[in-house]
């Protein structure tokens, strides 16, 4: 298996880290893969581009950080400005249309998805934005199965919120597939 190096980025409160953890956990618990997740804690709330790195692989991972991601997700303008230069050529860059105005070309597949908008239109709860993003990622790629992610959601999300989360995941996947 090819080694996947992902960087999730955005601003505090968007659920970036949770999404990264869910993905990696799904890979480890349900797909017998190896994964490592780290995050950088910003001192500042303002301008604090939150970042979480995930590596997924079928062989041992030592260095746990991602220098050049082949998948980069940016959910805020600051995050985009800060991290878009580090994407690995040929990689995948996912941004949200509501939050990010892309302003330069990178040598990568660039996908600007209306994830926030979709969530607000179809579910109306911004809290599941991150799960929709995860769905989109799965839709666009295929290294983790959506079923695995759903299993993780079941263990992490209180039952009364489970449905909207699953719905958000499905919406995201559709979006991802559509923009594939």
């Amino acid at each position, binding site marked *: 298996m090819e080694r996947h190096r992902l960087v999730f980025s955005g601003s505090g409160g968007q659920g970036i880290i949770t999404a990264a953890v869910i993905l*990696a956990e799904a890979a480890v618990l349900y797909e017998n893969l190896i*994964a490592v*997740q780290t995050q950088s*804690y*910003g001192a500042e709330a303002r301008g604090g581009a939150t970042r979480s790195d995930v590596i997924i692989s079928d062989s041992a*991972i*030592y260095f*746990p950080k991602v220098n050049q991601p082949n998948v980069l997700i940016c959910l805020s303008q600051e995050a985009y400005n800060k991290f878009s230069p580090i994407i690995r050529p040929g990689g995948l860059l996912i941004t949200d249309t509501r939050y990010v105005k892309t302003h330069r070309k990178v040598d990568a597949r660039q996908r600007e998805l209306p994830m926030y908008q979709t969530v607000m239109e179809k579910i109306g709860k911004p809290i599941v934005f991150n799960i929709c993003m995860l769905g989109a990622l799965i839709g666009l790629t295929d290294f983790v199965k959506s079923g695995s992610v759903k299993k993780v959601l079941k263990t992490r999300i209180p039952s009364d919120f489970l449905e909207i989360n699953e719905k958000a995941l499905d919406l995201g996947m559709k979006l991802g597939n559509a923009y594939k």
Partner: protein
Amino acid sequence: MNENLKFIQGNEVCVEAALYTGLDFFAGYPITPSTEIMEHMAKRLPKIGGKFLQMEDEIASLCAIIGASLTGHKVMTATSGPGFSLMQEALGYAIVAEIPCVIVNVQRGGSSTGIPTHVGQGDVMQARWGTHGDHAIIVMTASNHQDVFAITVDAFNLAETYRTPVILLFDEVVGHMRERIFIPKKGEIPLVERLRASVKRGVDFHPYLPREDGRLPISDFGGVNRHNVTGLAHDMWGFPSDNPQVVHGLIRHLVDKIQNNTHKIAKYKEYYLQDARTILISYGSAARSALHVVENRRSRGEKLGLLELQTLWPFPYYLVQEKCADAKYVVVVEMNMGQILQAVKVSVDRPERVFLANRIDGVFITPTDIRNILRLIEGKGV
């Protein structure tokens, strides 16, 4: 799904391992990047009937667990640099009064408040020498979650074996990183339990007189052997004494029980040392980058090896000397200004072949950093 397979933070692994040993008492005060340890304890302990206390500060936390240890419980506290500095007086007390307990320091960057959310390994020498007076101490560390588990269990075992506080010196990267871990089944890792005095009610009881095998039985507060615990120099009954012979005996005992057992205490891992021309010595999260470089270069046929230390104190001088005897270069990889470097230099013949590959700016040291330094050492320039 394997029931025992988990994908969690290093801090949580530490909690799971402590519970595995039978820990049922924790007291602490939050501080980044160790806070998750106490947060998980707060969730987990009441569920198993254990006790969780949030104290007013760090020294109170250490005092509280020392107290709880005396009633026979396995205990732990967790903190980071600033809190560890505040614990030093109570740490000395636990050493002198010989109270088993485990203190976790998840290191962050810098001295003083420093760079709280960033990584560093600057507390290595403090862990050895932070409290006043001559003493010895056991300090352990690990670089991945499976080892964090094993070493944490080990820390509790050593605390009981030698009736002493043990420091677990992790770092921000290990503490916050999530990776997979298989939680061992009950019984898979042997546990050392508290050795309790077997004297009957009324029989003279010497809480500070080692047995033939060196271990010191203890009696729980609340049991039939009442005794006295003090931080003053004390005799074998635990009562204050300033008799020079008693004092001498006590201090030698405290140091020797650990120093003389370095062979038994020292844990390490080695990778490709047999024929290594260049040996990296590292520990904690830095060892991950070191191992990355080693695997990488080995795959290119270069003779690199890694000695990963898991016991930092007592420092296994003999081990380092032996392993490095034939190496041309020894490169210590750590995230400080060379705290283990000094000990390595003292260990080996020809200390001039020992180099330092480090970072001190709060950024996790990368394989590239190490490679760049190796090139310089080998005379190849930047």
